[in-house]
Structures are given as structure tokens and as C-alpha cells.
């Protein structure tokens, strides 16, 4: 045993083993109807268990004074074995001659619905199990409803415990007709109904004499007829952006192709902003040569031709067939958490990699998922294990699809506190509309109540703020101001630029360039900015504003009225600005044609503690703009307590 080999050398041979896809099957149904028993039986009868496993469990059961159950092969937790119920889902690989499977055992107890959903959501197909003796029970219905919401279409119904009903065909037919009717309402048409006895192993792997009247397949045969859900490659591209990496000089966009495909050189548009660029490369570590295309399901890393502002959460598409975007969605949702979900209380909505604050603005109806009947009255709240149709409003625009069109980007989860509380699918999406604004019902309150700054902010989705860009002529203020204005606009933030030069054409036309006039110029700009911020806009002020005292004065004006103020120092060395000299002003100032020119013949007092400093000579415009945009977005964000207050007030109206 002591021979040492080179650790890096892996002996290989050329017998290659083909890899196949696995079909994922979930077994669901009411508590105690025999799900775990069926799976244990299936594994046993197909000889799929590790050697000695049954003996080991038989002995262990004996030691604990319990009767041996096939379910113990699945119920791995001590608690599960002792109580004879499944608590959490188990996923186990399973192989037949035809192909490989993953069998998912889901709990049937109502208490563990969240575990059932966890197990069922990833399945390609399902077996709905019903106890022939008990017939259709609460979870038989609720599970079926959830399967339909989760989009699982291939279903076989197993009618179990036929041994307890004397193998009578009438009993089987009764369950079949009752259940067929219920499933029909959900649009579910099962492939087969199969009478079985999981405990005794009848109709599991082959037809059994006790049930010879059954002409359809046994369970195993029914499984083999299921299809692996085909990857949706005929759908339009949805590239879900996870992150942007800058580990080296490359700016890499990492994400997954949820649907469609992507080629180097193609145009790609990022939503909800709608910015576009071209795919420059697909990056792959250790690849013999870089790929030129990527297919549905792949996790990829790409670079773009043109550096545009994109961020985690964005969904990339081809120029046509993009997703819908907007702040409102109509959805069906299921709620799994103990704490109920009320109207108007903020939560986090996660769709793809987007994560936004949102709330229910309307609960159209709540269904009792075990009867499919709407609950009477207008509940205004969704309780655990209920299913509801709702309207949700997000704080900022999101990109999404209709679930029946593209399910990957048509479904979402709701996070309250730190845990996932439920999920939903999107029922409607308006692909034409650019952006849907607040609903009419809420606008009514405009006319009947005084519009406070908070109410205005609520309508805008952000609060008003003043960004004060100061710096030498040629430092980049106007370029950054216009770039920022554009970015904010794309994100649904209302903004406006106050440019020093523009103001001098009108409001400040009577002012010159003396120290005194410069002060007055700044004061007027500052007051105007404050008013506009008061009205709810993000005001981008782009003025040289060389004197510290003047800028401090504007800060005071804003703060006195509770307007967020951010001083942004656009910092570029004088020689750089002079070399840039976009309008030839430095040349003229040097020649003495312009008097009192800042930096040449008039001083510039750099900010001592600006909220943000941007060194435009050291970074690319794109990067600087990204920093500035992030800063502006944060500054205009509505603070948390304000939301709560405003909602409390809103609920009282």
C-alpha cells in the first residue's frame, strides 16, 4: 500500500461511460396514504437497495420494538421512524434498465407543505397517491392544486392499499371517477390510474393476479412512460445576470441562460432598463478555445462590446421578444409560512436574481386549496397553506414574463424576515407597455388629501434630493450630469439637471463673475434646486461653485427643509482640465480674454468632506458614472421607517 504516485497524474482509459439525464419524480398525497412505503417497495423490488440494508433496518426496528416498515427505508430521521410520518422530502437516485431516476418522497402532513413544495418544484412528473379505503382527502386536493401551480403536467394516480378493500374494482372505479372530476377543474388529466398495494408489493413492478381486472400498466411501467421535461430551447433568450466580476482587466457578466441561446456578436438588451450592447466574448476557464455560443441551461460568463450600466438582477434578451417590465404584477401565490401575509406590508420579492421591495396592493380572492372554493368576504390577508390571486406593486420596475409563456422568469418567491414564505406565478404581463404607473385607486387620494412630501415620494417611488456636482471647468461635470440624468431616467427615477451655464441665460442673467455675484448665483441655483427637490425630483446641479462657503450655504438650505443633499467633488487636476479644454476657455483665459477664470485667475476651494469624490482623470467615464449613479440611487431611496409610517397612514384612509 505504500507506493507513492505523482499526485497530478490521473490514470485514464478509453472506455467511456455514457451519461444520461435523470427523470425526477415526486410522490405526493395525503398523510399516511403510503408514499414512503411505495418508494421503499419500489427500491426493494427493483433490487436497488445497498446490500444488507433491509436486514439492517429489520434488526434496528426489532431493537426499537417497532414492526418493520418499508417506509423506514425512506424515513431517515429517527423522529420520522418513531412517528411513522415523513417530515421532510428525501431525494434518492434510482435506476432501471431503461434510465436513471431521482425519486422524491414528499411529506403528506399539512404541517409540512413547505417541504412538499420544496420536493415537488423540481420534479418532471408526479405520482399522486390515494388510499383506496379513505378516498380523496384534504392533501389529495391541495397537493394536486400545487402541482398545477408548479407547472407539473405529467401525472399518474396510484390508488393504494387495495388489500384493505378486498381488491374490489368498484372501489377503485369510485376513487377514479371522483378524483378525475376534481383534477379536471385544475386542468390535470392523469396519464393512468393504477390500483396497487405498496405494502404487499402488488402492481409495483409487474401485474398482480389479485388485481388482474386492471388492464393498464403497473407502477414501474407507468414511470417508464414519463418524458424528461424538454429544455425550453425554442423560447426567446432570457439571460439572468447574477454578478459582474472585475478580477482582472475584464468586466465579466456572470449569469445563466434560462431560455433561448446566445451567440458572440449578437445584440443583447438588458431589462428593465432596456440598455443594449453586443456580446464580445464568452469566457470559459480551461476551455481549449473560447466558445462562440451558449445554450439554454448553461451558466456562462460574457463580456460586452460597449460598457453599459448593467447590474445583478437584469434580464438580457434579444432586441425583439424582450420581457415585460413594470412595477405591478398580477399573480397567483401560495403561502407556506406561519405568519400570514397582509395587504400593504413590505416584503422582498425575488424573481430570477432580481430582489426588490414590494407589497400586496390587492387580494382579488383567496382560495381554500382543499376545495378550490373562494373564501367568503374580502380577507385582506393570506394565511398559511392558502392560495390567492393578488396584485403586487414593486418599489422599482422589474422585468418579468407571463408564467405560461416563460416559466423561468414568470415565477417568484416572497421573502419576509429572512426566510422564503411563499411563491407565485405571474398571470398577466403587458409586453407592449413601457412602464405601468400606480393604479387609479391610489391616485384618488391625491385630490382629497394634502400631498405631503412622503406621499409624493410614494408616488415617485423615490424621494427628492439634491446632488451638487462641483469642480473645475473641464473636470467632467456636465458629461457626468447628463449621463446620470439618463441612467436615472432609465431606472424610473425622476430627475432634472440645473446647469450653471444654462441658469446664467435666464434666472441669473443679471449676474457677473465677481465673488459677490458668484455667491448670489449659487444661492439662486441652490434655492431652485431645493424647490424642485421639494416637488419630488432628483436635482442634478452642475456648477463650478468654487467657494466652500457658498456650497455650505446650499447644504444648509436643503438640510433645513429635510432635503437630502450630496456634494460630489468632480476632481481632475488643473493641467488635465486645461489639456481637455472642451470649449477653448482655458486658452482664452490664459490669453487674458476671460477675467476671473476659476483655476487661472480666480481660486477654486476644493471640498473638505464631500459625500462623494470622483477622480475623472484616473477612471473611465463608465466606471465613474456607475459610482455616481449608485450614489444618487441611494440618496433618493425612501428610508425604511418612512415606508412603515406611510403605509400605516395609507391603511387608515
Amino acid at each position, binding site marked *: *500500500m505504500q*507506493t*507513492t*504516485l*505523482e*499526485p*497530478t*497524474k*490521473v*490514470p*485514464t*482509459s478509453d472506455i*467511456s*461511460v455514457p*451519461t*444520461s*439525464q435523470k427523470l425526477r419524480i415526486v410522490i405526493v398525497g395525503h398523510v399516511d396514504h403510503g408514499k414512503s412505503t411505495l418508494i421503499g417497495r419500489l427500491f426493494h423490488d427493483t433490487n436497488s*437497495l*445497498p*446490500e444488507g440494508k433491509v436486514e439492517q433496518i429489520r434488526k434496528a426496528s426489532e431493537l426499537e420494538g417497532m414492526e418493520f416498515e418499508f417506509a423506514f427505508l*425512506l424515513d*431517515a*430521521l*429517527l*423522529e420520522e421512524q418513531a412517528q411513522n410520518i415523513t*417530515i*421532510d*422530502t*428525501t*431525494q*434518492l*437516485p434510482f435506476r432501471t434498465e431503461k434510465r436513471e431516476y*431521482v425519486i422524491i418522497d414528499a411529506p403528506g402532513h399539512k404541517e409540512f407543505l*413547505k*417541504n412538499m*413544495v*420544496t420536493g415537488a*418544484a*423540481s420534479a418532471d412528473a408526479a405520482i399522486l397517491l390515494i388510499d383506496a379505503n379513505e378516498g380523496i382527502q384534504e392533501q389529495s386536493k391541495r397537493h394536486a392544486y400545487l402541482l398545477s401551480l408548479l407547472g407539473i403536467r405529467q401525472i399518474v394516480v396510484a390508488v393504494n392499499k387495495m388489500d384493505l378493500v378486498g381488491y374490489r374494482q368498484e372501489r377503485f372505479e369510485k376513487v377514479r371517477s371522483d378524483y378525475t372530476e376534481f383534477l379536471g377543474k385544475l386542468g390535470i388529466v392523469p396519464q393512468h390510474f393504477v390500483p396497487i398495494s405498496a405494502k404487499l408489493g402488488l402492481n409495483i413492478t409487474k401485474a398482480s393476479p389479485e388485481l388482474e381486472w386492471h388492464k393498464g400498466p403497473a407502477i414501474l411501467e407507468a414511470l417508464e412512460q414519463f418524458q424528461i421535461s424538454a*429544455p425550453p430551447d425554442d423560447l426567446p433568450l432570457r439571460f439572468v445576470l447574477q*454578478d459582474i*466580476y472585475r*478580477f482582472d482587466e475584464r468586466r*465579466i457578466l*456572470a449569469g*445563466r441562460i434560462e431560455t433561448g441561446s446566445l451567440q458572440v456578436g449578437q445584440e443583447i438588451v438588458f431589462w428593465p432598463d432596456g440598455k443594449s450592447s453586443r456580446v464580445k466574448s464568452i*469566457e*470559459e*476557464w*480551461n476551455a481549449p478555445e473560447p466558445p462562440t455560443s451558449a445554450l439554454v*441551461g*448553461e*451558466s456562462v460568463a460574457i463580456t460586452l462590446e460597449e460598457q453599459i450600466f448593467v447590474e445583478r438582477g437584469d434580464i438580457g434578451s434579444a432586441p425583439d421578444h424582450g420581457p415585460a417590465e413594470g412595477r405591478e404584477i398580477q399573480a397567483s401565490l401560495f403561502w*407556506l409560512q406561519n405568519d400570514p401575509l397582509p395587504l400593504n406590508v413590505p416584503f422582498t420579492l425575488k424573481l430570477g*436574481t432580481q430582489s426588490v421591495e414590494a407589497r400586496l396592493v390587492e387580494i382579488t380572492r383567496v382560495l381554500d386549496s382543499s376545495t378550490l372554493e373562494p373564501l367568503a368576504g374580502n380577507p385582506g390577508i393570506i394565511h398559511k397553506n392558502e392560495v390567492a390571486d393578488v396584485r403586487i406593486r414593486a418599489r422599482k420596475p422589474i422585468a418579468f414574463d407571463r408564467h405560461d409563456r416563460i416559466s423561468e422568469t414568470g415565477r417568484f*418567491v416572497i421573502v419576509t424576515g*429572512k*426566510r*422564503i414564505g411563499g*411563491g407565485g406565478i405571474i398571470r398577466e404581463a403587458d409586453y407592449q407597455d413601457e412602464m405601468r404607473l400606480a393604479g387609479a385607486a391610489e391616485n384618488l387620494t391625491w385630490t382629497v388629501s394634502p400631498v405631503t412630501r412622503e406621499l409624493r415620494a410614494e408616488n415617485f417611488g423615490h424621494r427628492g434630493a439634491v446632488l451638487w456636482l462641483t469642480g473645475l471647468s473641464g473636470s467632467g461635470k456636465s458629461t457626468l450630469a447628463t449621463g446620470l440624468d439618463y441612467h436615472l431616467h432609465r431606472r424610473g427615477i425622476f430627475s432634472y439637471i440645473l446647469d450653471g451655464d444654462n441658469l446664467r441665460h435666464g434666472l441669473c442673467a443679471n449676474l457677473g463673475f465677481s465673488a459677490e455675484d458668484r455667491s448670489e448665483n449659487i444661492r439662486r441655483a441652490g434655492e431652485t434646486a431645493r424647490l424642485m427637490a421639494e416637488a419630488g425630483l432628483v436635482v442634478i446641479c452642475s456648477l463650478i461653485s468654487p467657494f466652500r462657503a457658498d456650497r455650505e450655504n446650499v447644504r444648509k438650505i436643503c438640510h433645513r427643509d429635510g432635503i437630502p443633499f450630496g456634494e460630489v467633488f468632480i476632481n481632475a487636476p488643473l493641467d488635465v482640465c486645461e489639456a481637455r479644454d472642451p470649449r477653448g476657455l482655458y486658452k482664452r483665459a490664459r490669453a487674458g480674454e476671460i477675467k476671473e477664470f476659476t483655476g487661472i485667475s480666480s481660486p477654486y476651494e476644493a471640498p473638505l468632506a464631500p459625500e462623494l469624490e470622483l477622480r475623472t482623470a484616473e477612471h473611465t467615464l463608465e466606471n465613474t458614472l456607475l459610482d455616481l449613479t449608485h450614489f444618487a440611487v441611494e440618496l433618493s431611496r425612501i428610508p425604511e421607517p418612512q415606508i412603515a409610517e406611510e403605509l400605516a397612514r395609507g391603511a387608515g384612509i
Partner: protein
Amino acid sequence: MDHLDQLEAQSVYILREAYHSFSNLCMPWSMGKDSNVLIWLSKKAFCGKIPYPVLHIDTTYEFPEMLEFREWARKEYDLDLIVKINEDARAGRGTYTQSVGYETHDPVTVTHELKTVALQQVMAERKFDALITGIRRDEDPTRAKERYFSPRNAEFEWDYKDQPPEFWNQFTTAIEPGEHIRVQPLLDWAEVDIWRYIEREKIPIPTMYFARPGDDGKKYRFRSLGCWPITKPVESTASNISEIIAELLVTKTSERAGRAQDHHERNAMQKLRAKGFM
């Protein structure tokens, strides 16, 4: 995409979600086959740069070949490697009145002290908020109930009776104070998938996995690598990956059969796992 491509894509997706979600992420690395697949997937996820530290919990009962491999891999992959030993337990100082080791203690106790407690110590020192681990569902029935993102409390306990839901690739990424998250990108992989992937990608692994002649003239290999006093090789003639795969397709004994600690007592794994063992 074939099955391996799908597994790879999902693992890469998870690694990227983890890197985005946690500020202080760490990847324990045992140098075993699963661990090395994780390194490989990390390289792929981040285009060649592994942006988190890699942690080896050194029990001091490591096979010399494994330590050799550790040094080789550290350089090869440019790893930010942390090596952690529970020195107090080995030396019998601090809170320990006696040196802990296989010579004097049962395997469950030693594993707990030299692995779980060592991990707790390094977590306390480095304040990691998430750990990327290489566990797979097919290893053990309790693992079959795991999630991709699984919260552990301050005592490292796994509340397997009340796990948060996880579906549609939306994960539990926010933690309560004192909690951390176990990120488990290999959950869906089966043992044979790991081998198929190692073969396809030509991932370097320690040579102890391949059969060599033993003193009795028969051939043996390690199927799972743990501490040397409790890890026994299995009889096998599989000297390359294809032969290992072929062997796996016909064997029915469980992978960890070679590890004494697992069948030391009934349900030992569940107890160890609930206490924070990986």
C-alpha cells in the same frame, strides 16, 4: 446539454449566488474527490480566480500523500489556503484535560473534537458567514433531506425538522445573528457523476483512490478518504477512473462503508450531522 453539463451549470449557479450573497465565505477542502471537484467548479464559476479562502481541517491523522497533494494543489490553483488544527485537543491543554486521539478515544469523539470543534474554532476566529461544502444527497439518507443553502445555528446545529423551503433556485441567503449557511453545490451529484466528471475534465485527485497491491497480494483502493486510523481500503482492482465507474455500477455497498466512525453506533451520521459535522 448532457447530465454532467446540467450538474455543472447548476453548481456554478449556486457558487455564484453564494459569492454574491455572503461577505465572508469560505470553502472547506478535504482534498477528497468531491472537494477537488468543488475547486474545479469554483475555477469555472469565477473564470480562473477562486475569490474565497479554502480551509483544510487538519486532524493530524492525515495520510502523508494527502499532505503532499495539499501543497501541490495550493500552488497549482493559487489557493488562499487556511490550515486549521485543534491544537488544544491534540495537546490536551486549554479546556482539554487529556489529549484527544484515536489511540485513546472512540472515532465519534475524535471526529467531533478534531473536525467539528476545529471548524467551530476557525469559524469563531474568522467570522465566516457561509461555508461551501461538498456533500451529496446520495451519501446517506439524512443527507437526502438537505437543501442547497442550509442554515446552521450558533451551535452549528442543523434543524432538519424545520428547514426553510427552497425552490425555483431561490435560496435562503439571509442569516440571523450567530447563524451561518452551508452552501452545498454538489447535492444533486451522485458518486458516479463525480467520477464521470473527474474523468471528463481530467481533474487531478490523490492517487489513493486507485487500486494498488497490498501486503497480502490482493489489490486495494480507497473509496472515501478520512483519517488513516479509521479509513480502510476496499478490495478492488480498479486502477483508473473508468474501472472505478464500472465497479460502482455493480457494487451495492455504501460509499462510507470503509469509515469506522459511521457504523460505530446506530444513526451516528444523523447525530454527527445535527451536531455540525459535514
